[in-house]
Every structure is written in C-alpha cells, then in structure tokens.
C-alpha cells in the first residue's frame, strides 16, 4: 500500500512536474511566437534600408502567421506594427497597416486593436491615399464589430476636403455601421456629399449606405434622389442597392422605384433591378412568384 502510495505519489509528482514543464514550454513557445512575428516584421521593414528592398510576398509570409497565432502573441507584436506607421518611408507604413489589417480580420480583431485606435486613426491624417484607405479598412474589418471610439476620428476624416474620396466613402459606410443615429455623422455625410464626387466614389457611397442596411430615412432619401441621376451606372447601382435595404426603406422608395419601372425611356437592366428590389420586399406580387419567406 505504502509502495503503492509512494509510487502513486511519485507518479502524481511526475505528472505535476511534467505539467509544469509543459506549461513552461508552452509559455516559452507562445513568447517565441510573439517574438518571432515581431522580429520577422522588424527584420522585414529594416531591409527597406538595404540595397535590396524586400519583396511583397515576404510580407505576405509574415502576415500568414497572424491568423494562427495566439491573441497574446499577436498583441505583443502590434506595437511594432504601430511603430511602423511612424516611420518616414510610406512602404514601411503600408507594411504596418497591412499587418494591422490582417489582425483586424481575426475574430478577436476588435479586442486586439481597440487599444490602438489612436495608432490606426493616425493613418487617416497621412497624405498617402493608400494609407488613408488602409486606416479606414482596419477599422471596418475589426471583428466582431468596429469600435465606436473610432467615430470621432472617422467623422473628422469624412469632413476633410483634402483626403482620398474613395476611402472617405468607405469611412461614410463605416460610420453608418458604428454610429447610425449620430447627428454629427449625418452632418458629415451631407457635407461630404455636397462636394463634386467622381462616379466611382458616388457609387461607393450608395453601395456603402445600402450595405449598412440603415433604417435612417435621411440616408434612404439620398438613395431615392440617386434614382433620378443622369448617369445610368448610378441609377443601376442604386436600384440594386434597394435590393439590400430594409423593407421600410424600400417602402419609402416605392413610388420612385415604380416610376423608374414605368419610365419607357429607362434601360431594361435598371428597371429589372428596381423591380427586383420591390419584389424582394413583397411590393410587387406576380402570379408565378413563390413567396419563400
């Protein structure tokens, strides 16, 4: 019995020791992973100072480590990514932004990056358009949802007139997601839309509004006004956009969509898109339609 107990104790102790060693190994491995991600990235960006700049796919290989790395280890590497945003070389800034974007796409992306909202928001103040777009994207990709603390910097960004309009359009959509009822957002959007915008940017705004599925009538009215746009691409995109809007918004737009459908001068593709928007919300019933809801 004693033997047995002794053996048992020894066995138990061995297990305890083994577990402790394992835990130690795990801690060492975790730290190494974080250090490795950080070191790899540091090594990558430092090579921009050498005669032979690193290749894009080397950055991709480093980023590939992010989705599978533990949160703690990623968290440890984030400061190095943020630090890259302070470097003079835009290529290094962009590499840092890319790493942060991949972090944002993790399921814990918001938790990891919310403490670094200021770091990310700094991108919006940089002159390089790609970096501005990256800043908006990092916020937008954050899971499970973008932090509301980004609202202020995004509103400021949207109201500037010297920024990348396409990234601003993306920021507009993001603001509608995180602060749909914020009156400052509404004002900022109106101010942004009062500018002369390219076709692509206007389309991005309309799709951005639709993709948030906002129920705010103010934004529905923006879409309704676009149904009468001179540009057929705009009319097509906004007719499609109503396919993604809530039923309340489509009801609000129903007269305008109906008018579009009945306009003999309107293009068939556009009319079909408008018809589909009404149909998906049960506002056009055809005899052969099968209500699947």
């Amino acid at each position, binding site marked *: 019995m004693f033997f047995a107990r002794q053996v048992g104790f020894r066995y138990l102790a061995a297990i305890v020791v083994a577990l402790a060693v394992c835990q130690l190994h795990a801690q060492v491995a975790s730290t190494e992973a974080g250090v490795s991600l950080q070191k790899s990235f540091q090594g990558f960006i430092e090579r921009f100072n050498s005669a032979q700049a690193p290749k*894009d796919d080397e950055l*991709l290989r480093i980023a590939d480590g992010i989705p599978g790395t533990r949160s703690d280890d990623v968290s440890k590497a984030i400061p190095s990514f943020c630090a890259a945003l302070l470097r003079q070389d835009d290529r290094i800034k962009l590499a840092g932004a*890319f790493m942060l974007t991949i972090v944002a796409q993790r399921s814990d992306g918001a938790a990891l990056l919310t403490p670094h909202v200021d770091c990310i928001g700094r991108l919006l103040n940089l002159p390089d358009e790609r970096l501005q777009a990256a800043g908006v994207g990092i916020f937008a*990709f954050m*899971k499970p949802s973008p932090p509301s603390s980004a609202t202020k910097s995004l509103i400021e960004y949207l109201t500037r007139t010297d920024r990348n309009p396409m990234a601003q359009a993306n920021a507009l959509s993001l603001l509608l997601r995180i602060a749909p009822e914020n009156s400052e957002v509404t004002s900022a959007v109106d101010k942004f839309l009062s500018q002369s915008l390219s076709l692509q940017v206007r389309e991005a705004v309309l799709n951005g509004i639709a993709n948030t599925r906002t129920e705010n009538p103010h934004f529905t009215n923006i879409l309704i006004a676009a149904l009468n746009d001179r540009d057929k691409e705009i009319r097509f995109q906004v007719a499609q956009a109503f396919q993604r809007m809530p039923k309340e918004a489509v009801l609000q737009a129903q007269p305008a969509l109906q008018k579009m459908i009945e306009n003999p001068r309107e293009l068939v593709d556009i009319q079909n898109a408008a018809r589909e928007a009404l149909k998906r919300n049960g506002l056009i019933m055809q005899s052969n339609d099968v209500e699947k809801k």
Partner: protein
Amino acid sequence: MNSSFSAEAHSPSTIAKSDAVRPSGFTSDFGSIHIEPSNPGAFDAVHFLYDPTNGFSSIMKIFDRDLNTDMSKHAWSRKEGWMLWAPMLGLQTPDPALQFPASTKLQPYVFVRNLSAKPTNVQMRLYWRSASSNGATPPQVLTLKAGEMQKLDVVSQFKNLPKEANWATVSMLTNSGPDEVIAVAASYDDTGRYGVQTPFTDQMSAHWEGGAWEVDDAHNTLITVGNGGRKDTHARMIFHYVTAKGHADYVLEQKLAQDEQLFIDLGKLIRSQTPDAKGNVFPTSITSGSYTLLDLDDKMGNVFEGKVVTDKRYGDASYGCMQCCGVGVHAYLDQNPIGVGMGLSFSPVTVTGMDGCTDDFLDATGFFNSWWTADASIATAQYSQSNGISVGSTTTLAQGQVPRNSLRTPCHTDLKTPQSGTNVPPQFNVAYSDYIGVDWINGPSYCYYQGNSNDLIYMGDAYRGTYRATESLLIIPDLQTYSGFFKGVGQSRNYGAGSPANGSTLSAADEDGIPNDCHLWNASGFADTSSMGLVTSFPYAHQGQVEYSGAAQNPLESTYAPITWDMRTVLDTTNPQSPTAYANYNHTCFPSHQIKVNNAVIYLYTPSRYDLTYITYCLYFQYGKITGQTTATTVPPQ
C-alpha cells in the same frame, strides 16, 4: 447605183450629188446614200441640200453604222425590240413658235430604209401635241423588204391625226438588229423653203450635254425631252447661261412616264418669266446658252432629246444634237484590294468611272449588275458587297454594260468587267476575363444571424462558366478594324450562416431567395463597368494591338478592393496562315486572369491561394501585382 471616189489623206473632197446621180437616170424624188470606206474610220462626211432658187439649204443627217453591233451594245433598249425615236416631227399645221408665214402648210414625211438583208417589220406611232391637247396614234406596222427604202406620207398614213396638231414625236419599234433601220422625218411646205427635219435615233442616256439654244428677235428654241426607255423616270433639264454676274442655271424637273414627252418653248419660258424648280427665272436679256439633260433615276438612262432652232429670217428650223455622255475610258473598283472579315460583309464596293463628256469622276456602280469572285470558298460577292467566307485571297469581279461615247460617234454600251483583289485576312476574338477559380471564398465582411457573427462567403466561378469581369472584341489587324466590343461583370453573390448548405459547395440548397437575412443566400449585385476600357491600335501593317484595362469593385463590400487589370494583346499576321499573339500583362494577384485569342489561351494566371489574407494582400493593398510579357505563340486564324 454604185460609184467610187478617192480622197487624199487629210484632204476634203466634194461630191455634187446631182452630178453623181444624173447619169444614172433616176426618176425618184428621194433616195439614200450609202458610203462604205475602204479604210474604215479614216474619213468623215457632211451632207447638205441647197436650193438656190428659193433660198433653201439644210444639213442632212448621215448615220454611222456599226456592222458589228448587237443589242448588247444598246443596253438601254427595251426588251420588245430595237426602237428609234424622232423627237420633233413638224405636222401640217406649223407651231406658231416656228414663226413661219401664217399660210404655211407643211407636208410631213418619214423616210425609212431597211439596211439589213432580210425583211423588217416597223411599228410606227406618233405622239402628237397641239396648243391645247396631246395624244398618240394607234401603231401602224409596215414591212420593209431587204434593203428597201420607203417614203411615208404621215398625213395619209395616220388619218386620225388631228389637223390642229403641231408636233409629233415618232417612235419606231423594229424587229431588226440595231443600226439596221435608218429613218429621217422631214416636213416642208410645197415651196421647200419652210420646214423642219428630225432624224430618228435609238440613243437614250442618263446624261446629255452640248445643246445650244438661242432666243432673240429672230430665233426661238423648241425642245422635246422624251422617255423612250425602260421605265418611268425623272428628267432634269438645266439651261446654262451667262450674265454679268457670272454663270447661272435654270432648272426644270419633271417625271416622265414611259413614252411621255416634255415640250419646252424656251422663248415662252423667258417671256413669261416662269419660275424654275428652284424659283429662279430667266433674265429677259438672255439670248443664248447651252443645256444639260439628266435622267435622275437611272444610270443607263431613259431620256432622249430633240431640238429645233427657228430662224424667221430664212424660214428654216434646224435640228440640233446633244452629245450623249457615257463612261469614258476605264471603270474600276475603288477598293483594291477589298478587305473583308470572315463571316462579315463589306459594302459598299463601288465602281468609279469618268464622265465621257465632262471628265468628272462618277459613281458607275449602278451599271454593274453581276458580281462574283474567283473563289467562293474564300469570299462571295453580290451587288456592291463582298462577303468574307474563309481566310485567304481571291478576286472580286463586277460586270455590266457600260455606256461609252466618243466625240462624234453615237453612244454604245460595252461589257466591262473591272476586278479587284479581295483579301479575307485573319481575324481574332480577343477575350480577357478574370474569375475566381474555386467554388467559394471567404469575404472580409460578416453579418449577424440569430445573434451570432458569421463570415460572409462569396460564390466563385469554378465550373459555373461565370466571371468577375470580362472584355472581348473581334479585331482584324490587316483591315485595321475591330467590332463587337463587349464588357461585362458577373454577379457578386454572398451567403451567410448555413452556407454552403451541403458542407462543401454552394448549390441550389443555398438559394433560399431571402435577401439580407445573413442566412444562406444573403445579397447579390453587379459591379460598375464604367472604368473598364479599351484601346486598340495598328502600329504596323500586319499588327493589331488590343489593350483592356479596368477595375471591378465588389458592390457588396464597402471597402475599396478592386480587381484591376491592364492587358495588352499584340497580334501579328505577317504570316496569315500562322498568326501569332503575345500579351503584356499587369494585374492584381487575385483572382485568375486569362486572355484567349480565338479560344486559344495565350495567357493564364492562377493564384496559388484563395484565403482572406491573400485576397486582402492582392486586392485591398494591391500588393503582389503580376506583370510581364508572354512569348509570342501561334494562334488559330479563326
């Protein structure tokens, strides 16, 4: 009787007819003269009659006869037979416009001779007019024996001709060949001093030139324009004159049915100040000019013209002849070589000729009714059109009867067959597309279903024959043309919780038809195509370049991450049987990008990965752009 005479080279000879016929003891008061040169084409002749007793003289018509002619050289003729027209036969009661003494009574005769060696039937008809009416006599048929000449008394022959009729246009429809019947209509009073004559002619043309007109105190000009052709038509008469301000025209236009005539008293037109088709009037001071006659509807022409200029000082009304204007010298196909794409048509293929009177270039295409090619397996032809069948070269030929003229001979038509090389060069369908080569991919966005966050997935293009974006066209480098440019995008479709329903691929089970609920099919939309562009160029004789560029942004995503491309395909047809193509490419590293030339893949890029990190890398950050140039490879010429 036969007699011969000789003439020195480049020297005129004069033969007094009375001297020539007196010894033969002729008792007839009419006859004809046949001159047959031993050296055809070496001489010309003019024949005139004069009577010093009563002051009469008149040029007598001498007809050229072409022994080798046939109906094909008179392509303006009607199908019923060879037809002759005498435009202005003065009838018994002279037109006051002729300014003959009031008591003058004319005796109209038609002198007709059959030159052939067989009997000929002649169906004669008079289209008469008086000051107040017009009409036509029933046709009268007479038969002429071989070589026979007849003098027909018009009054006794056509008993129902109204006495008040002043003029007649006489038609003769014969069953002879062309140039085998000649005829002259003449009307003189019994003194032989007052009268008119009008020769018969078969000439119809779309363009007549050279008529002169006079209208003054002593002269007047009377003109008949007739439709003696094959169909109704519109005639335009343009009177040219010169004033102190320069050249001016007076234009008359009238539709003429078959056999219908337009009678013009030019002096009356001037005096009455009748406006023309453009509202202009003749200045009253104008006394002379020239005129042009056109058939506006038919290139071969249906119209003839006759004119008399009266001279009240001498009593004679002399007839005048316009020159018919054919197509001078050469007619040629303007397109040489003709280039036409395979399966395509090229038109118009045109024939240009030169106006025989004015030397102006004219569109002669309408004369050519037969079109064909030497090798119908390469190209076929129809009127004014070439059709490409297969790659190769052949010859296109057009054939038709073309009116020709010289300065002194009548018009005739010649069968002309201009031809042109015809190339059907290689043509290429150049198609670019980018597509997601797997069933579905993870997107960056997420949605909430029953309180849980779900990554949205996007439908791919694998095994669906779909694409994200595409551009295509048909280009023919050797013709420096392209057509059928198409640009389009595939539908973006995202799916939420529960997809793929079968655990591996998106299927009908995912299509619940309920939008925006984050469960199974969620949303769909088409990207904007406005940034998708095309540039074509043809820098060398056998090279064509197609450059497609564009950016396609998923409309269901609110972050700008476009697929971009700039793809230049260079086609070389130096060897048309073995053309080559290569591509310069510059595109995002996601998704697949492909260029096909005539369905042969000349460039294909397939990404190594489809995960979100890679897509973010390629599209959102536009890292890893794929650039380069393929080597030239042989492509099918289609």
